[in-house]
């Protein structure tokens, strides 16, 4: 029974993280379209889209920050797997636990310091070059991504220590790539 509840908990967390990822993924898509539209506007009609430089980089920054939450959970950071893959299971759990504890600490530092930066920016008046949109809402969204990463990394740490689950072995590509269908 207790294992079932654990499974449910993981499923709920998994669902939350999936939604976080989708929002971030959509942001990446929007920035791609924005740059394409801006290029067409500039070369085709000598009409640049205003503030495309600032807005695209800030929105992409948000997407990356939210993506951190995804990596914290899936364990697909770029890392050296050599030692962890060649030791007995209990040692491996200890190594994985240590690694994710360090990641959690780093994420906590980032959350703290970027939080300060947001507070600072709210008083500072930084704006984009052309449309003069305030920077701080973008920074605040980045900070929320850090908070989410703090949560997901902690969840992953629990899964490592409690369930002894391993971290994703090869980063930068995973299940979806392996499913690359042959189109029959």
């Amino acid at each position: 029974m207790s294992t079932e509840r654990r499974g449910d908990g993981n499923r709920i967390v998994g669902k939350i993280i999936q939604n976080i990822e989708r929002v971030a993924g959509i942001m990446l898509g929007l920035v791609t379209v924005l740059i394409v539209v801006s290029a067409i506007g500039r070369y085709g009609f000598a009409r640049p889209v205003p503030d495309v430089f600032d807005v695209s980089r800030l929105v992409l920054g948000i997407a990356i920050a939210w993506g951190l939450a995804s990596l914290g959970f899936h364990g697909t950071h770029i890392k050296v797997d050599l030692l962890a893959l060649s030791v007995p299971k209990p040692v491996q759990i200890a190594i994985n636990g240590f690694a994710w504890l360090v990641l959690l600490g780093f994420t906590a530092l980032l959350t703290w310091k970027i939080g300060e930066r947001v507070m600072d920016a709210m008083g500072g008046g930084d704006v984009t070059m052309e449309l003069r949109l305030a920077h701080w809402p973008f920074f605040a969204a980045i900070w929320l991504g850090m908070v989410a990463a703090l949560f997901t990394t902690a969840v992953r740490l629990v899964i490592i220590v409690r369930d002894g689950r391993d971290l994703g072995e090869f980063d930068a590509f995973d299940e979806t790539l392996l499913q690359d269908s042959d189109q029959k």
Partner: protein
Amino acid sequence: QDTTLRLSHWVPEGIAPASKGITPWAKDVEEASEGRIAIQVFPAQQLGKAPDHYDMVKQGIVDFAWVNPGYTAGRFPIYALTEVPFLVDDSVRGAKAIHEWYAEFGAPAEMPDVKVCFVHPHAPGTLHSKDKITAPEGIKGKNIRPAHATMARFVSLLGGGPVQVPAPEVREALSRGTAEAVTFPWGAMYDFKLTDEVQQHLDMPFYMSAQILLMNPDSYAGLSDADKAVIDSHCTPEWSSNVAQGWFDDDMAAREKLIADSEQTLNVPTEEEVAAWRTAAEPLIAEWRDNVTAAGGDADAIFDGFVKSLEANDARY
């Protein structure tokens, strides 16, 4: 020596603002302290990105930082007056005027966390383009890389498209046609090797951009009284003129070199055209007033203070 102070800037160490402004200033501080102070200079964004430099010195990541307040739009609304074109006609006397004005009207309000050492403008820069441009109509429909936020607004107002690329990428942007013109100081034509890309130069003092060297107050407080005195004697309006002179000379030499080069054309605008440019820039002053008022400043008093300081130093356009 007793104290090592770290100074960060973001241009290559060989070009004029560094080699004829920052480095000699640092050397002079070291000598005046009779060897008690050493200043370690970190050029070319080694310790941080150009737009982060204000925060870096404010937070003590470095002891000194060379900051372009125009890189962070909206952050220093008062200082932005130095970016409005056609107000200052000489960067050497102008540096002293800006320093005196800003120390009274600006720094206490918008840079309270740092100590101002010197103001460091280049000689009035201009518009360098592929096609000849002498009047404001020439901007319409063109993609132009502006020097700072205020020039970006100016380009927008005149119907052009501001293309934001960092200084080291300007050459690429021009060669690819991403931008067709750039506002830059004269010296940048050679510093960034742009003479093949833009050969038409508007021959008038068109805009200014003034960097500012700032010091962290805790770093200052940690010095002995004798060393504080050395720093104080190097953070003066006179030193602002002093460091501006080296950059000015380099810019003017670059202009002479362009004149001597048969492939380059310097276009002198007519009096009517100059008047048209100035009229076109007037909304920038109105926008500046709005921004300063919105930030809680007394725009009229600050503007008058600027004009008075420029006149007192014989630097009014």
